[in-house]
């Protein structure tokens, strides 16, 4: 049994220690907004925050996380989808299929926390998540809108 702090709640997770955080979140805790895409930290669909840092949860075993570390998933980013990025995503109609967007938003939220006024280069460096529908330009526009750097 491993204790994890997810979205402000401490939960007991009955899973083998080498279980990736992604699957503990999806299958033991039952939060399915965080997605499986590749299992090898390539695509970023599984991005969550661990102590505020964007982390690819598919390649992080739960044995590597302490009870004191705060995990935030897309469901915990804001109580009512009111995070400025979530609002901007809707305003600019960013999602197409939407499958990668949880990870995209979590990556963007971590970026803006660290760098509130990112340059285009900052955005392109930090936003390495894959989107097969190709919504990249609207994602970039939404981030810049929130950062107040849209021009």
């Amino acid at each position: 049994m491993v204790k994890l702090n997810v979205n402000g709640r401490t939960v007991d997770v009955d899973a083998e220690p080498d279980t990736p955080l992604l699957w503990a979140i999806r299958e033991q805790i039952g939060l399915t907004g965080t997605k499986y895409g590749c299992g090898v930290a390539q695509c970023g669909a599984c991005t969550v925050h661990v102590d505020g840092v964007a982390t690819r949860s598919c390649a992080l075993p739960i044995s590597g996380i302490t009870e004191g570390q705060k995990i935030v998933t897309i469901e915990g980013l804001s109580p009512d989808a009111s995070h400025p990025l979530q609002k901007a995503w809707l305003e600019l109609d960013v999602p197409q299929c939407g499958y990668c967007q949880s990870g995209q938003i979590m990556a963007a939220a971590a970026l803006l926390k660290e760098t509130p006024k990112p340059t285009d280069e900052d955005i392109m460096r930090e936003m390495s998540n894959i989107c097969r529908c190709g919504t990249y330009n609207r994602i970039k526009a939404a981030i810049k809108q929130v950062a107040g750097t849209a021009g």
Partner: protein
Amino acid sequence: MNAIDLSRRNFLVGASAASGAFTLGFTIPFGDEALAQSAAPEVNAWVVVKPDDTVVIRIARVEMGQGTLTGLAQLVADELDADWSKVTTEYPTPGQNLARKRVWGNFQTAGSQGIRQSVVYVRQGGAAARMMLVQAAADGWKVPVAECSASKGVITHKASNRTTTYGKVAEAAAKLEAPKEPALKDPKDWTIAGKSLKRLNQGGKVNGAQVYSIDHKMPGLLNAAVKDCPIWGGKLKSFDASAAEKMPGVKKVVQVENAVAVIADTWWRAKTALEAVKFDYDPGEHGKLDSAAIAATLKAGLDAPEAFVGNKQGDADAAIKGAAKTIEAVYSVPYQHHATMEPMNATARYTPEKCEVWTATQNAEAALAAVSQGVGLPLDKCDIYRLDLGGGFGRRATSQDFARQAALIAKQMPGVPIKMIWSREEDQLHGTYHPITQCKLTGGLDKDGNLVGLKMRISGQSIQATIRPEGLDKDGRDAFTFQGLNPGGAEGQFGYTIPNLLIDHAMRNPPVRPGFWRGVNNNQNAIYTECFMDELAASAGVDPLEFRRRLMKNHPKHLAVLNAVAEKGGWGKPAAPGVFRGLAQHMGYGSYVAACAEVSVNASGTLKVHRIVAATDCGHAVNPRQIEGQIEGSFAYGLGAAMLQEITIKDGQVVEQNFDTYPILRMDEMPAVESIVMPSGGFWGGVGEPTIFVAAPAVLNAIAAATGKRVRNLPIKNNDLRKA
């Protein structure tokens, strides 16, 4: 004539027969069977109005990111004169469709047909519902229906100054006879369709609430991880699951045809246990197949005497023989995988009385047929419940192997719902890949640089021969191979008039399973023709735009989109230092598209695509903003393939098993996209795919302008782009 035998044929013919089961012979009735009893009154099959005035529009096609669900709802709502803010949607199941004599028509969502193929009957559904609702109000007021009007879900009788709402009269309307041929609005009178409305159902995509197929939950659900024989044509001889069976959470290990599935309480435990299973395969006759052997087979086809003819005018051989100058080039395009973000998956529950499957599919009717055939229950004892797709791009359109496999697994634990998820590796290994082809082009120029003859020999794989042989012509020709190269027709007409022309196809079918991949054969056909047009222009010493214009006098719509991108893209004007431009045009899926790309290549040969101006004439634009999204998205998909992606084969199996070896275009490689949506009216073209055709050739032509090097073998990453 197939150089490589098709050993998967038996299985694939079965699957394709299933997928083709419903493709013909449906009519669209709006009569008696359209009326059914339900909690909220169903005005007709397409429209349900609840007492609180919520309008539920039934959607036969599926949403996978391309915006079709919103577009179809706009079209129905517009004819209905509904209040858009009160519109919601729902998917009927294929079982319901079957039970109601296919009242919703075709469910297939592919070929950029979601809207254009159903645009008449869905609007008739909305118009008929409006007429019935207004009639019901008029009957209630005992006034002539002609004195009543409807707007935004409110019905008004002006003379007596009375109003009512759709919700209040829906029950009475549902009892009325449906009008037979309701008149449709002129698109210029649209108030909901034609507008850049936001998509429906976006909220759940930003807070994690959207339920994709992989997220489906049910009481008592178990999970399955699966590994199918990875070798094309290979067989599972035996397996040893003794270690896996003892691992935590494992309930059962089962064999399903050539696959082994571990069923466990969680998917992660199932996958972990699957890795402990030992497999023994009979590699079969293709166990040593590799990409070099496939390439050699295709190369031989470039000069083979026999080929299927796609487009023939005059005498190309004679014209080229007599030409002042002859140019020849050979191009190749590799296998590519769809790589949907959400890997294939399905949840199934089987009992001897009923088999139910919850899944993400582009064709729920084909999935129903595949499941029915797989588990051996009649169609009316099976059903498919559609969940959101984490991408489709064609992978979930034709082959419903994932739904069938999940049902077969569930059959081994009757009564228990089992969710089968393919790992990314399994998804990469068992795709329906964009077919592999090569093309030899030979052109003849007269002394003035005019193109007097063109030969285009395509050698390579036919999609239909492998997965849908009933779609071939009587003589075995696959008409799909010639997408965009046809002499006429509304679907994809060749945009050049060349007096002596021969386009033909030497069919060569390796055992690697092909499929319909966003844009399908238009993609490589546009690369072959549009890159070679630039080669011919260069040889003739003529500007590529001017060279094309000379051949396009009889093709005004093709020319209009090309001119539009040339103008907006700044063709003929200086670009930024180090930046070079390339053009391309093509027609497919009923739409005319063109692109002007701007690229630079630095001293170390690194390519940067800066900007692409794209134009599409899709006849009518249901939602311009969503079309812009499809243009951008299709470029990301098409450029990723052109720049980065190839599926190669070694020892009879796919080499690239995850995104580390099958790279996907990312944000830092995405160009700025400027869209010109220029619907000229009078026809309905698709928008989900067409612009993808021109992404790669426009960029390849710009690369040639930048470097003096002509990339003829894709992907681009395999080429040294440093200046010659």
